[in-house]
């Protein structure tokens, strides 16, 4: 039933967030790897009690990898896991063991939301579909975010995450002008669908608050890429053209690119759209002659002479340090920014002031920094309020406090390998 109308107040887990806007919410998080985990992370960041279901018998990819300390694989040492699974609780349940799915059904009966991005069909085999779970939790909100789609031929496609930006059409546009696609070389579909899924869950929660009714939300990593491609789709529909790699060009801007500066592999981005910005650029470059150069007389002319334009800009940036060049350009009203690598981002004064990376203490890795959140609110709580859980760290508390099991029952479940 809606959170406000519950007859008996829920028992929170030890360490739960009592002050966040979503602190009354409990989420069962089957999120696998990055995509599903992000959806849970967003809700957890606002204080929801997000319980990650995991097991040593089938380790999440983000519990694997080379250890940082020592040589033995250690599920507690994957630093990526520490980012997307912060603020969460860990329930070690072997879903393949007899009794495992029952525990989940019991937990969901005390929960509001379920998140999953499993291979299509997996939850059906476990008896944990929306229809199954609704029996004990009629107002359940459940979101499914598999790689491609949940039914039909695409539900059977097995492919790694980088394939999703390819199947969705985005990769076909990533590359140098007129050349072959290079594809997006970093995860994009994952956080993108996680954010869309969290947004849809919040909308469904609003609906539930007003009507008492939950619902099932279906999306996929490939489908959630499509909104980002709206402009390219419009281009194809309206002109018949099929967008292809265009390097750093963007219609309406000249110049628009990344220009190398002094230093090793250092680049700055410059984007000029208006005439005023163009005048500012010429002032920054101390090149009044460019203002009267017919090749660059207006936006259209500049767009026809981009190579020559890039050469002029590149000649200037090539003789300067990145930060100095950016300061000069910004001082003259030109949009410019350094291309920061990971180390530079971590040490950047502006990002530090925005708390882009926040320190947490981890029992195994010690002091570490994980990413914060991109929203600051006037009436809000810190986004990072708890480190990533150890695998199964909260199993006992969940069984005891939420499911009301006795110590002896818990012990026998451990012995049987149902829980960890």
């Amino acid at each position, binding site marked *: 039933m809606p959170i406000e109308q519950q007859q008996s107040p829920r028992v929170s887990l030890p360490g739960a967030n009592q002050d966040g806007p979503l602190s009354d919410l409990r989420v069962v998080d089957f999120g696998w790897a990055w995509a599903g985990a992000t959806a849970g992370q967003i809700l957890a960041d606002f204080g929801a009690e997000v319980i990650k279901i995991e097991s040593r018998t089938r380790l999440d990819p983000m519990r694997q990898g080379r250890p940082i300390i020592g040589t033995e694989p250690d599920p507690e040492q994957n630093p990526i896991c520490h980012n997307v699974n912060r603020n969460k609780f860990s329930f070690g349940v072997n879903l393949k063991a007899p009794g495992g799915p029952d525990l989940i059904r019991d937990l969901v009966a005390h929960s509001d939301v379920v998140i999953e991005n499993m291979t299509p069909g997996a939850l059906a085999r476990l008896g944990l579909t929306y229809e199954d779970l609704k029996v004990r939790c009629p107002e359940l909100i459940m979101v499914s975010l598999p790689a491609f789609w949940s039914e039909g031929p695409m539900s059977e496609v097995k492919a790694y995450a980088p394939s999703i930006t390819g199947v969705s059409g985005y990769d076909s546009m990533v590359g140098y002008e007129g050349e072959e696609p290079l594809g997006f070389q970093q995860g994009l579909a994952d956080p993108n669908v996680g954010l869309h899924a969290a947004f849809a869950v919040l909308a469904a929660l609003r609906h539930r608050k007003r009507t008492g009714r939950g619902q099932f939300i279906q999306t996929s990593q490939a*489908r959630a890429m499509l909104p980002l491609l709206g402009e390219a789709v419009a281009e194809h529909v309206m002109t018949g053209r099929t967008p292809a790699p265009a390097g750093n060009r963007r219609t309406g801007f000249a110049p628009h690119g990344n220009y190398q500066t002094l230093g090793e592999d250092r680049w700055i981005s410059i984007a000029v759209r208006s005439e005023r910005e163009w005048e500012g650029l010429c002032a920054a470059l101390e090149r009044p002659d460019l203002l009267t150069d017919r090749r660059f007389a207006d936006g259209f002319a500049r767009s026809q002479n981009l190579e020559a334009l890039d050469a002029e800009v590149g000649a200037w940036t090539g003789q300067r340090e990145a930060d100095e060049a950016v300061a000069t350009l910004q001082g003259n009203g030109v949009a410019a920014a350094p291309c920061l690598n990971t180390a530079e981002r971590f040490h950047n004064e502006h990002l530090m002031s925005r708390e882009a990376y926040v320190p947490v203490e981890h029992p195994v890795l010690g002091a570490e920094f994980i990413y914060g959140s991109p929203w600051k609110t006037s009436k809000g709580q810190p986004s990072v309020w708890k480190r990533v859980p150890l695998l199964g760290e909260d199993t006992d508390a969940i069984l005891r406090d939420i499911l009301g099991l006795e110590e002896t029952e818990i012990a026998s479940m451990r012995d049987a390998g149902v829980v960890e």
Partner: protein
Amino acid sequence: MAEVSGDGPLSGLVVADFSRIVAGPYCTMLLGDLGADVIKVEKPFVGDPARRSGPFPADEAHLERSGLFLYLNTNKRSVSIDVLEPSGADLLARLCGSADVLVCSLHPTESDAGGLDDEFLRAHNPELTIARVTPYGMTGPNRDWLGYEANTAAFGGICGYLGASGRPLLFPPLAIGDYEAGLNVAIPILVADLADISGQSIDVSETDCWATVQNGMGVIEYIFGGRVFTRMGRGVKSGPYPNTILRCKDGHMRLVAMQRSEWQRFVAVMGDPEWASDPRFKDRVVMNEKHSDEVDALIEDWMKDKTKDEIFDLCRIGGVPFAPIYTIAEVMSQPEFASWFVEVDHPELPGMRQVGFPYELSEAPPSVRSGAPRLGEHTTSVFAELGIEISPELRAHEIC
């Protein structure tokens, strides 16, 4: 105010929106598609700059036919006000008096110059949620920096991952950073509504989006390993072969095979060519580091007379996790993706096919209730609902 909401989950939520181009409009599109009543405020005569960006049918520019604008602005009403003029700002504040949320993408320096701070905007409605999306945020040393989407991608750290070694870093195409920023600002808006937070101010920085949730994880690897990732071109040369994009008859395929068994199944799909048992290729990590160019050529030779769909089918049957690099045209023609697109009747372009909704909801689904509005189409009616006459003087001064 009379609500023009749908039946979606956000029915009854009233959103005043004077954001422009992509980031803010994508946020309000997400809200409007799920039933919120979105009142879009545009500058008189020129409107949202997205009306000028195109693409346009047959490449002929027209204020009511810009593909980007039409796509992003379904389900919204348009009110034309020049908010940077004092009397326009007053109208905006009065509009906010009847709204739950205000979405704003003015650059911080523009808000400063126009006096559009939170206090002013809440003059008629202290409970208003104000959501701002800007390149660097409303605070911090770079607050006043100019920044287009390319710059925020650069500063946010994604460009270093894109492109080929030794060549310029690439921006992600299509200004996707703006979309992610819009999505990120929509989330705390709904949280504030759900938790009945009165007078919440939300500040989303597009650079923060890249630096944190989109691409923040590399930082922890850097701290522990000192490793700074950089672009590698189409093939990732570390880890087991393959992890690359190769050419086939009609385009390209993405080949990634983490497990040995997957690679072995692909070798079987190729008909067990002799070269696959070359002892140099036994260790796939070594194969990747030392022989990837050679093996790429061998595979491309096998693929050169086969289309994407043929190879995709063979791989699916053979249990190989490779997938095509579809073009936009191909994505739009896949029967399985048909429901991911919608046709919308815009005032000037009825029946335009465009990207639909990113999700399906079983009880209260998203819907298209109206096409994108004409510029200022609803100025009179919206202010009539508020009991405000738009004086001829305001119109004469192009405030409204």
